[in-house]
């Protein structure tokens, strides 16, 4: 049945290419999380209004991001925007789609966090003479930050795994680089086992550093 000889040396020769891909994976993950977070905050605030055009816009964004596959969103960026004359590179398409996706999920996470802070705290801060912005900055957001910390890390991990979808539109991140590297020898199994291990390590590093950060920040 298993009359197969493994050729690991082929993988070691290509390891620099894989690591180059891993770097791109990390870059696209971090960039899309930064952009996603920046968009998610106003979306979450708009969702709390419960009426008006802002609420409808934010709701449409959140529901579209959460109820269609991430791969569909990448296709939309890569093929769909072409209809408007926008020819995006596979990097930009993946980056935009992942940011769109992250923003939708994070907006719901943030909204949950905001709802968990009692509204009296905001009123109390306002009646102490703080401006609305300062009340959010110094009273509400620090508490929200603690509540959403682990859901946020989950999303970060998810974005890391989802960035592998970029390979389907030709992006040379870790999965794409592996696919290219194995196409010379077709030692698919050896190559992808190593790639799986690299993904696992990256996910573990994120998880462990998140735990340490949480402990450092909130160990009271």
């Amino acid at each position, binding site marked *: 049945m*298993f009359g197969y000889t493994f050729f690991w040396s082929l993988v070691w020769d290509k390891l620099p290419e894989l690591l180059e891909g891993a770097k791109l994976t990390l870059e696209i993950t971090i960039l899309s999380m930064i952009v996603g977070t920046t968009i998610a905050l106003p979306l979450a605030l708009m969702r709390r209004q419960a009426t008006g055009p802002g609420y409808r816009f934010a709701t449409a964004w959140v529901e579209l991001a959460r109820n269609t596959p991430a791969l569909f969103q990448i296709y939309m960026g890569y093929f*769909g925007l072409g209809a408007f004359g926008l020819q995006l590179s596979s990097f930009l398409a993946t980056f935009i789609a992942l940011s769109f996706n992250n923003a939708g999920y994070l907006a719901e996470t943030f909204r949950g966090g905001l709802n968990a802070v009692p509204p009296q705290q905001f009123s109390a801060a306002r009646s102490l003479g703080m401006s609305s912005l300062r009340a959010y900055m110094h009273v509400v957001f620090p508490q929200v930050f603690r509540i959403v910390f682990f859901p946020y890390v989950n999303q970060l991990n998810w974005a890391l795994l989802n960035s592998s979808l970029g390979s389907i539109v030709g992006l040379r991140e870790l999965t794409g680089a592996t696919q290219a590297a194995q196409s010379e020898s077709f030692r698919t199994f050896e190559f992808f086992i190593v790639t799986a291990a690299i993904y696992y390590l990256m996910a573990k590093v994120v998880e462990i550093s998140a735990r340490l950060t949480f402990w450092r920040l909130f160990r009271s």
Partner: protein
Amino acid sequence: MKFQLPYSGLQWSDLPFLLTGIFHTILLTVVAAAIGTVIGIILGWLRESSVVARYILAIYVDMTRSVPLIIQFILVNSVFSLAGLALDPFVVGVIVLSLYMGVLTSELVRSGLQSVRPELKKASRSLGMNYWQELFHVSGPLALRTSFPSWVGTVIALAKDTSLVGVVGYVDILRATQILINRTNEALLMLGVTGLFYFLICYPISLYSRRLERTLQ
């Protein structure tokens, strides 16, 4: 002579192709959800009731959750080809997705069983129920009640994840769309239809799950 790519617009005969894709997506979702739920219930119960199983399964659960699904598809596919078995892409999809669904469901089952108060278990046991009677008539139904809304959410996630099975050659709706886009260049129209399909399936179910969660609380 100018070189021209073979080009033809959308035709009515493409409709059966798309419908087959839709059927494949639904079939894969239903089969993987059914098998995955059974696996998940067994795994969840094992993880809750046996310490040894908890530690052994922790490694498996951890790995399934930290490796992208695309890579799991490719690996399972290549393992079977190493063994000289050419598996149907549908079978590869079912294996990977039901194991994935099983892991996610086992987390829900475990937290559902943990949420049952120990006093209730003790009370049932002292009424003369044996372990299995207590599990099936007291803990089980209570756990089902707490974990059902999240299970519905997991099925939606699964339905979206079936779109990745295209990497091993299964022609689901998204893959069918991509093939048609390559031929016709009608990207926006085709993707619009596909997006609408996913949205119409996932959105009502997610609304239902959220409402269920609110009423059960």
